[in-house]
C-alpha cells in the first residue's frame, strides 16, 4: 500500500486490520481505536482521499490504495490551519475523537475549501463525540476554512 505518500510493503497477520498495523506494527498511534465496528469515526483515515474507518478494514484490502493517517497530515497547510483552529476554539474536552475529526474535516476542505455550517455538520456526522465539543469543532473547521482564504 501507499502510506502517507510512501510505498510500503509489509507482511501482516491475515486477520489484522489496517488499524492494528498502523498502531501496532508501525507505531502510528495518532489514529485511535474507538469501537472496532466502523461506527464512531475515531479511527478514520483517508483512503484515496476519502474518510473511512480503519478498525474494521482488513489490511489486505488496503493494497493498491493511497492511505493517509492523521500523522501523515503533519505539514499539510490545511491540516495546520485546522489544528490551529482547534486550539484557538479549544475544540475538545478529552480529545480522543479529534484525530478522526481532523481526517473528516481535511477531506471536506480538500473538496470544498469554503463550506457553510451545514456542510461542515454533514461532513462530521459520522464522527461521534461524547464530551459535547461539537459546536466548538464546527466553529474550528469554519475558522480554518476562513483562514485558508
Amino acid at each position, binding site marked *: 500500500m501507499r502510506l502517507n505518500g510512501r510505498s510500503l510493503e509489509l507482511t501482516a497477520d491475515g486477520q489484522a486490520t489496517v488499524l492494528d498495523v498502523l498502531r501496532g506494527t508501525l507505531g502510528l498511534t495518532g489514529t485511535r481505536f474507538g469501537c472496532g465496528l466502523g461506527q464512531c469515526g475515531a479511527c478514520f483515515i483517508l483512503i484515496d482521499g476519502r474518510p473511512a474507518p480503519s478498525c474494521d478494514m482488513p489490511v489486505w484490502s488496503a493494497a493498491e490504495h493511497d492511505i493517509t493517517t492523521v500523522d501523515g497530515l503533519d505539514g499539510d497547510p490545511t491540516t495546520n490551519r485546522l489544528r490551529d483552529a482547534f486550539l484557538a476554539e479549544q475544540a475538545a474536552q478529552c480529545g480522543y475523537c479529534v484525530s478522526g475529526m481532523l481526517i473528516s474535516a481535511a477531506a471536506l476542505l480538500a473538496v470544498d475549501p469554503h463550506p457553510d455550517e451545514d456542510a461542515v455538520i454533514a461532513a462530521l456526522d459520522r*464522527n461521534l463525540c461524547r*464530551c459535547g465539543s461539537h459546536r466548538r469543532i464546527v466553529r474550528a473547521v469554519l475558522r480554518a476554512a476562513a483562514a485558508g482564504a
Partner: protein
Amino acid sequence: MSSPAPTTALPKGLAANPRLATWVRITPAATITIAVGKVELGQGIRTALAQIAADELGVDLGQIRMLPPNTADSPNEGVTAGSMSIADSGTALRQVCAQVRALFVAAAIAEVGLDPATITVHSGVFSDRRARASTTYWELADRVDLDRPADPLAGHGPETVPRAGAEVERVVGTDVPRLDLPDKVAGRPAFIHDRVLPGQLAGRVVRPPSPAATLIEVDTAAVRALPGVVRVVRDGDFLGVVAEDEPAAGRAAAALRAAARWHEVESLPVEHDLAAYLRTGPLDSFVVDQTEPALGSPGQIRASYSRPFLAHASLAPSCGIARWDGEAVEVYSHSQGIFALRSAIATVLGLPEQQVRVEHAEGAGCYGHNGADDAAFDAVLLARAVPGHAVRLQWSRADELAWSPFGSAMVVDLAADLDPAGTVASWSADIFSQGHLARPGFEGRPGLLAAGHLGNRIEPAAPADPPLAGGAGLARNAVPIYEFPVRRVHGHRLLRTSLRTSSLRSLGAFLNVFAIESFMDELALAAGRDPLEFRLAHVRDPRAVEVITTAARRAGWPGRVGPDGAGQGIVGQGIGLARYKGTGAYCAVVAEVEAVHDVRVRRLSIAVDVGRVINPDGVRNQIEGGAIQATSWTLKERVRFDRTRITSVDWESYPILRFSEVPRVEVDVVSRPDQPSVGAGEAAQGPTAAAIGNAVTRALGLRIRDLPISRDRIIAAMNG
C-alpha cells in the same frame, strides 16, 4: 485574660497530606513541579490547578510542570468526582503555594538581603526596588526545606503572606488554553491506549455472556495452540488471554469465547417496566428533608417521572496496563481514584498496599465511575501470568457498553398543593432508585468487576449512596431550590439489585431536577401563571434569580409558540433551574425545541454562576459539553436488555447525539469574584433535561414524564 489562639483549619486535602514538599518541588531547568491527587479526565483540571499554582508562586504558567498523579509520590486527595476538584484541590494548592512563596520570600530577604518592604517575584525571580540583587526559586532551592508541614495558622492571603507586588491573579480568571490539548490535537501519544512499555504484551478478557452467567466448562487447549498466544488465564469465571500482539489476542479471545460453555440465568428486570422493579423493594427508605409538623397526606396534584439506566459510553473503551516484578505490581489506569484502586487491588490479591503502585494515565472522557478500575484489575490478573512483562488490556466496545457500571434507572413521585393565590402550599417527593456509589473501596468492598468472577470471589454488594451531607446519591438535588413552606422528601434505595450501577455525572440530580422542574411547569399551568414568573415567585436566593433571568433574557423568553416557517415542526421554549447539590453551581437553561414526532433541540441558552471563576472558557466548555451530553441522555439514551442479557452493545443499539442533532449553545458566566469557586462539570445536566421537557410541552401541549423523550414516547403520549 488571654485571647484564644487563632485557629485556621487546613483544607481537607492538605490536612491529609500536610507536607509542603508533597505538593511543590523546585525542579531543574527553571521549572516547579506540582503534584496533586486530582486527575485529568478531559475536564481541564490540570490547567486550572496549574493556573492557581502559577499565580500563588509568582511564576509563569510555562514554568509549571504538572506531575501525573501516582500512588507513590502524589498527595492522596481521594477520588476526582462530584465537581469538587476546584473547591478541594484548588483550595489546598492555593494555600500550599502561598506558604512556599512566603518561605522563599523570607529566604531571599535573609540570604540575599532583598528589601522586605519592596520585594517582588516575577517569573520565579525575586527582586526589590533597590535592584542591587536578585535571586530565584532555583538558586534558593537548597536553602529552603519544603519537607515541613503546612502551617495551619498561616492561612492564606495578603494578610498573612505579603503578596509579591501589587498585581494579583495574572492567569487565574483568564481564558488559559488547556495545557494538554496541543498533543491531543497533533495526534501525539496522549492516552493510556497509546502507551507502550518495553516487552509489552496484549491482553483480552472474555466476559460472561450475561451478568449472572457462570462458567460450566472451557477447553483451553486449542486456544493455547494458536499462534502468538502466550498464556490462557482461567480463574473461576474469569477468562482471559495474553498474546504477542493485538491481532493474536483478538483471535485467541474469539476462540476462547467459542470454547466456553456458560450457564445463563434470567436475572434482569423487565426493561419496559422499570418503575415496578424500583418500587418492589426491598428498600432502604430515609428522610431527606421534612418540615415539622410532618405533612399529613401528599398534595392533590401528582405526577411521576422516570429515567432508564444510562451508560457512560465513553468514546474509548477502558484500558489498563500492569506489570509484575516479583511480589510487586505497577499499574497504569485512567481511574478517578488511584489510591482507592491501589487498596482494592491489594485487598483482593492479599498484598500489602506498598507492593501496588498505581499511576494515572489519561483516558477518553470520564463522566463518573466507568470501567477504568475494572480494566486495570483485568490487566493485573493477566499480567500475573507473565511476570516481568507489561500487559496492556483494552476492553471491546461491547464490554464497555455492557460491563461498565450504569447510571441507575430512577422514578420520582411528586405531589403538591396550591393555595388560592396559586402559590405552592405543600411539596412531597418520593425517589426510588438503585444506589449511585459502588466505587472501589466504598463500604469496604473492592468494587472491581473481576473480583466477582474469580474462583475465590468477592460478591459485589448492592450499590450504596454518598451521605446526604456529602451531596447524596439518589437524593442529590431532591430538595427543591424553591421556598415551599411545607416539605416532605423521602428517598428509597433498592437493596436487591440486578444491574451494576455506580456514579454517572450528576448522579440522582439529573432526574430529580428534571422531575422538579417539569412539575413546576405543571403547577404553573394549574395556577394559570407564566413558568418564569411562577419560579421567581418561589425563589429568594438572588444568585438563582440572576441566572434564571439572564438565561431568559438571552433566549428572548417566552418566545413564540407555534409552527416555524423554516422547519416542519412546532417551536416552543422551556426553562430549567437548579443549584447543583444545593451548594454548588447555579445553572439555568432555556431550551428552544422544534417538535413533531421527533424532537429537535435548536438552541440552549444557559446562565451559570460558579462563584469565582478560575478559567472562564474552561467553565463554558464544561457547561456546553454537559448540556449537549444531557440533551443526548434526554432524547435518545436507554440501556437495553432482555431478561438475561444486556443488548445495547454498540453505537447502533446505544445511539448518542450526532453533529446534525446538536443544538446551538450559548453560555453566560455570571461573575462572582467574592464567592468561593465551585465546579462546573455537572451543573447543566438536570436543568437541560428539564428545559427540553418543558419546551416539548409548550410546543406540543403534551407532557412526557418518562425519559428518553423519544419518537415512541411522543407518539404514545399523542395516542394516550
